[in-house]
């Protein structure tokens, strides 16, 4: 269903309390300019006791709360809906709160790193400004002309379904920071911005599609996508990101000819 769901539904009946606790080691990539390590990032290893239903976020909390209070990461909702805690776990972008320890092979140390391509501020925290800047650039809001209706705008269920997939985005940046093209110079708009443009371009109520397509026709726009599918694999909301990008590309071609 989504990127984090590879091994689900395997342990039928393995509900709360049944799965015994186990030891797990986390290797966390740290960076703290205020520490003695200065501008160098370094690895720290922690071994903790975890339970069957614990997620990587629980493990990080355990480290922070019981071992090393200086370990820094973002989190809020703890169940995959706020988009705070995209990190790289064993080399892949995921939400720490949606990744169960037992699903990422806890027999070996679990490697946790900040997402790639955005400047690291401290430990697992990256500067999200460039990410949100690209998002804002694609005009992520409904654009209409003429008088507002007194009630709602009418939209058929099919028209509504057309862009349903891309409304699920929680702006976690897992996709953009998994994109090899984004890593190179950070100038590429990135899949998240395109996903959010898609959400409006294909909304039958919106009249700003032309402007958005124009923006994404940029040298750093959709054409930089090399269909590597890392974004689609990384999206914790199961959005078919590459497909959305492809649809935007095709809309642009239709528009140009």
């Amino acid at each position: 269903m989504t990127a984090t769901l590879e091994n689900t539904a395997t342990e039928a009946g393995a509900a709360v309390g049944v799965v015994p606790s186990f030891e797990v080691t986390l290797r966390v990539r740290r960076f703290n300019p205020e520490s003695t390590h200065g501008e160098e990032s370094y690895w720290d290893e922690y071994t903790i006791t975890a339970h069957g239903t614990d997620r990587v976020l629980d493990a990080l909390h355990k480290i922070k709360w019981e071992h090393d209070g200086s370990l820094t990461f973002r989190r809020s909702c703890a169940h995959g809906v706020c988009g705070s805690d995209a990190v790289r776990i064993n080399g892949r972008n995921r939400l720490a709160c949606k990744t169960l320890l037992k699903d990422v092979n806890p027999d070996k140390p679990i490697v946790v790193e900040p997402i790639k391509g955005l400047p690291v501020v401290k430990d697992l925290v990256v500067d999200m400004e460039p990410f949100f800047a690209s998002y804002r650039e694609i005009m992520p809001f409904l654009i209409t002309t003429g008088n507002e209706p007194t009630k709602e705008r009418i939209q058929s269920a099919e028209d509504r379904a057309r862009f349903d997939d891309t409304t699920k985005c929680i702006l976690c940046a897992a996709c953009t920071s998994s994109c090899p093209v984004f890593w190179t110079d950070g100038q590429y708009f990135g899949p998240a911005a395109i996903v959010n443009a898609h959400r409006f371009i294909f909304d039958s109520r919106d009249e700003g599609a032309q402007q958005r397509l124009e923006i994404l026709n940029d040298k750093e726009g959709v054409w930089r996508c090399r269909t590597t599918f890392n974004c689609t694999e990384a999206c914790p909301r199961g959005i078919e990101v590459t497909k959305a990008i492809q649809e935007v590309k095709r809309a642009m071609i239709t528009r140009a000819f």
Partner: protein
Amino acid sequence: MPTAPAGTLYRGREGMWSWVAHRVTGVLIFFFLLVHVLDTALVRVSPEAYNAVIGTYQTPIMGLGEAGLVAAIVFHAFNGIRVILVDFWAKGPKYQRTMLWVVVGLFFVTMAGFLPRHLMNVFGGGH
């Protein structure tokens, strides 16, 4: 913009590695093409010059290199078609992984057709 400390390799899946391969083969072919056009241009200089250079291609080492080049072209071509399908066929993104395995399959079939014959030519008969 400051860049992030490098960290480990990203563990992308089929999509990412096929792109890496596509890119590498593309560059490889490109450089070969530069050389290939220039050596073919020797036909304008004189038949002797051309034959002399082409003769060096006909060593086993170059033969193997040539086999590699053909492999690169075959992969690049088939995967290029896959990329085009991903872009233009609505179901392309969904089946990209399947298509990659088809590409790999076709690659082996093609190479199986080509290699024995080519290697025979290279190592077997000769002038």
